[in-house]
C-alpha cells in the first residue's frame, strides 16, 4: 500500500510541476469556455418558432371539412400554421419537394360520408423528411382536431343533443420558466470543453506508460522490488487524480468567475470527472501499449479526441445535424463517444438534479474504461520479450 501511495504522490507532484501542460489543461478550456460561451450565446436562447407553412386541399364537401376549416381559422391555430390552399394533390407534393411548405394536409372526397357511416376515415398528412420538427407541429394540430371531433361523435352517439365543439379546448398552451432548466451557452460549453480537455488528458496516460515501457527510467523502476501491479495502480491513480484535480479547478473557476451552472452537487460532477479521467487515462495507456510508440499513440489520440468531441456536439449542438440519414448516423455515432456519455451524465445531473439520470452514463464510462485497461494488459503481455 505504501508503494502505491508514494507512487500516486510523486505522479501528481510531477504532473503539477509540468507548467506547460498544466496551463494547457486548465487555462485552455477556461479560455475556450469564455470565447464559445460568449460568442454563441444567442444560439442557446429559446426563440419564437414562427408559423409553419402547410398546404391544404380538401375534396370533401361535407361537415368534417367545414368543421376542420373553421378549426384552422381559430386564432391559436392560426398562430401555428400558415395555410396555403391548393388545387390538386400533385401541387401539394410539388410544394413539399420544392421545400416551399413543411407539410400537406389532404382530405379525401368521401371523408364526411365515411364518418357518418361509421367507417374509417383518415386525414392524410404528407411531409418532407427534411422537416421533422414542423411536420410534427402539423400532425399535432390535425390530431388535436380529430381527437376533439371523435369525442363529439362519441357524445352524440350516447344521445346528447347539439353537442358543441369548441376547438379552443383542444389546444392547451401553457408557459414554463426555463431559467436553470436548460443550459446557457456558457453552461453548455463548460461541460463540453471540460469533457474535451479531460479526453486530451489521455496524453498523460501515453506519457506515463511510455516512460515505464520504453524509457530507461522504466527499466530502473522495474528492476526494483516494487510489484508491477503496485506501480501501475499508483501511476494510473496518480494520473486520474491529477486530471480530476485539474477538472475541479476548471469547474470552480467557471462557477465563480463565469457564473456557470454546475447544478446542486459538485461532488457528483467530480465523480463524473473522475470516471472520465479514468477512461481518458485508460485510452492513453491502451494506445501506448497497442502501438508501442509514444508518437503514434499521441497522433491517434489527437485525432480521436476532436472526433469524439465533434460527434458528441462538443463544438456545437448537433441535434438534427444534416437532417435525415446524417442526423440518424450522428445519433448512433455519439453513443460511442466518451464525451457524449460525460455530457449526458453532467447535464442530467445539473438540470434534472438526480444522480439516477447520470448513473447509466457513468456506468458506460466505467465499462469503456474496463475494456481499455483489459486491452492494455493483453497488449502489454505481447510487448514483454
Amino acid at each position: 500500500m505504501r508503494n502505491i501511495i508514494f507512487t500516486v504522490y510523486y505522479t501528481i507532484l510531477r504532473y503539477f510541476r509540468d507548467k506547460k501542460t498544466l496551463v494547457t489543461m486548465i487555462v485552455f478550456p477556461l479560455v475556450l469556455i469564455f470565447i464559445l460561451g460568449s460568442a454563441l450565446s444567442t444560439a442557446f436562447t429559446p426563440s419564437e418558432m414562427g408559423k409553419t407553412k402547410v398546404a391544404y386541399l380538401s375534396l370533401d364537401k361535407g361537415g368534417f371539412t367545414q368543421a376542420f376549416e373553421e378549426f384552422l381559422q381559430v386564432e391559436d391555430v392560426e398562430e401555428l400554421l400558415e395555410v396555403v390552399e391548393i388545387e390538386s394533390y400533385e401541387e401539394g407534393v410539388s410544394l413539399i419537394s420544392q421545400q416551399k411548405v413543411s407539410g400537406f394536409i389532404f382530405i379525401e372526397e368521401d371523408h364526411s360520408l365515411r364518418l357518418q357511416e361509421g367507417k374509417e376515415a383518415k386525414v392524410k398528412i404528407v411531409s418532407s423528411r427534411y422537416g421533422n420538427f414542423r411536420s410534427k407541429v402539423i400532425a399535432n394540430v390535425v390530431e388535436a382536431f380529430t381527437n376533439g371531433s371523435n369525442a363529439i361523435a362519441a357524445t352524440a352517439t350516447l344521445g346528447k343533443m347539439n353537442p358543441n365543439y369548441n376547438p379552443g379546448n383542444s389546444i392547451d398552451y401553457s408557459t414554463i420558466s426555463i431559467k436553470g432548466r436548460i443550459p446557457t451557452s456558457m453552461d453548455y460549453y463548460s461541460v463540453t470543453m471540460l469533457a474535451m480537455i479531460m479526453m486530451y488528458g489521455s496524453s498523460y496516460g501515453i506519457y506515463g506508460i511510455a516512460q515505464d515501457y520504453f524509457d530507461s527510467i522504466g527499466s530502473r523502476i522495474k528492476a526494483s522490488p516494487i510489484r508491477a501491479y503496485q506501480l501501475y495502480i499508483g501511476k494510473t491513480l496518480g494520473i486520474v487524480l491529477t486530471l480530476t484535480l485539474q477538472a475541479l479547478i476548471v469547474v470552480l473557476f467557471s462557477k465563480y468567475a463565469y457564473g456557470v451552472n454546475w447544478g446542486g452537487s459538485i461532488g457528483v460532477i467530480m465523480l463524473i470527472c473522475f470516471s472520465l479521467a479514468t477512461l481518458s487515462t485508460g485510452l492513453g495507456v491502451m494506445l501506448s501499449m497497442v502501438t508501442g510508440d509514444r508518437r503514434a499513440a499521441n497522433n491517434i489520440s489527437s485525432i480521436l479526441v476532436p472526433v469524439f468531441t465533434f460527434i458528441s456536439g462538443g463544438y456545437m449542438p448537433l441535434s438534427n445535424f444534416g437532417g435525415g440519414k446524417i442526423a440518424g448516423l450522428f445519433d448512433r455515432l455519439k453513443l460511442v463517444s466518451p464525451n457524449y456519455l460525460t455530457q449526458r451524465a453532467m447535464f442530467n445531473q445539473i438540470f434534472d438534479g438526480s444522480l439516477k439520470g447520470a448513473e447509466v452514463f457513468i456506468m458506460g464510462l466505467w465499462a469503456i474504461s474496463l475494456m481499455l485497461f483489459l486491452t492494455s494488459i493483453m497488449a502489454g503481455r505481447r510487448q514483454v520479450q
Partner: protein
Amino acid sequence: MVVNIKNLVKRYNELLAVDNVSLSIKEGEIFGLLGPNGAGKTTLINTILGLTRFDEGSIEIFEKDFKKHEYDIKKEIGIVPQDLAIFEDLTAYENVDYFGRLYGLKGNLLKERIEEALNFTGLQERKKDFPKKFSGGMKRRLNIACAIMHHPKLIIMDEPTVGIDPQSRKMILESVKKLNKMGSTVIYTSHYMEEVEEICSNITIIDHGRIIAKGTKEELKAMIAFEERVTIQLSAISFNLVDDIKKIDGVKECLLQENELLVVSVRGAGNLSRIIDEVGGKGIEIKGLNIEKPTLEGIFLILTGRSLRD
C-alpha cells in the same frame, strides 16, 4: 558466487543477442564486462535483472534462482543504467527519495541514506536543484546516488561514464572503487578499455553475444603477448645497424624511421641486452627506450579483428 550464469541464450527473432554465455562473479569483485556497442552487454545485464526474458540457460544470484526469488534478489541489487534514469522534474533529493522508497526504505533511515548517497556523489550542496540545471557529469552522479542508497550487495553499472567530462569520470571510477571497498560486488560494463583496466579485477570480453575471452587483466594480456615490441630513440644512425640487429636471435622485424628504431621480437626471447650492445657497439647513443605492453584494446583487436569503438 554472487552471480552464476549457465548457458544463457537470448534471441530476438533471428538475432542471437546472447549466445550460450556462462560466467561466475565472486563476492567482492569488480567484474568488467568489455565489448563494443551492440556486443550484447546490455541485453546480458537486462536478463540478469529480469527485465528481458531469456530463452535458455539459468541465472542464479546470491545462490538463489532469480525466477523464484525475484523480489528478494532485487532488494539487494542497485542498477546504474546506461541511459540516465532520473526524473528531470524532481529535485536531486526527491529523486533519491523516490528510489529509496522503491527499495522499502522509510522514516529516519531513509533520510540518513539520502544524505549519505548525496554526500557520496558530491551532490549534497545541490540537493534542492532539478537535474535540468546539472552538467552531464552531475546527472551521472545522481544516477549513481539513486542506485546505491539502499546499500546493495551487488551494483550493476552499465556504461556509467558515457559522454561525461574527465573530472566526473575520475570521480565515478573512484566511487566504484570505494563502493567495492565498502563491500559491494560490482559489475561494470564499458567499451572504454582504460576504465576496465583501471578498476576491474576480472574481465570478460563479449562480442556478438558471445564471450570471446575472460580472466584477470594479466591472464588476458598473456593470451596475446606473442611478441615484444621495443622502440629505441637514437642519437645517430648506421647503415648496417638494421641488418645486424635482424641477425640477433629472436628478432622478427627491425625498422628504422628517422632516428627511431622499432624491434619486434618473439615473446620471451630475452634479447634486449644484445640489442642494446649492438647499438652501443656502433658508437650510437641511446636517447630513449620504450617496451610496449599488450593492452585490452590490443587483445580485442587480435580476437575480433576490429577496434572496441567500431
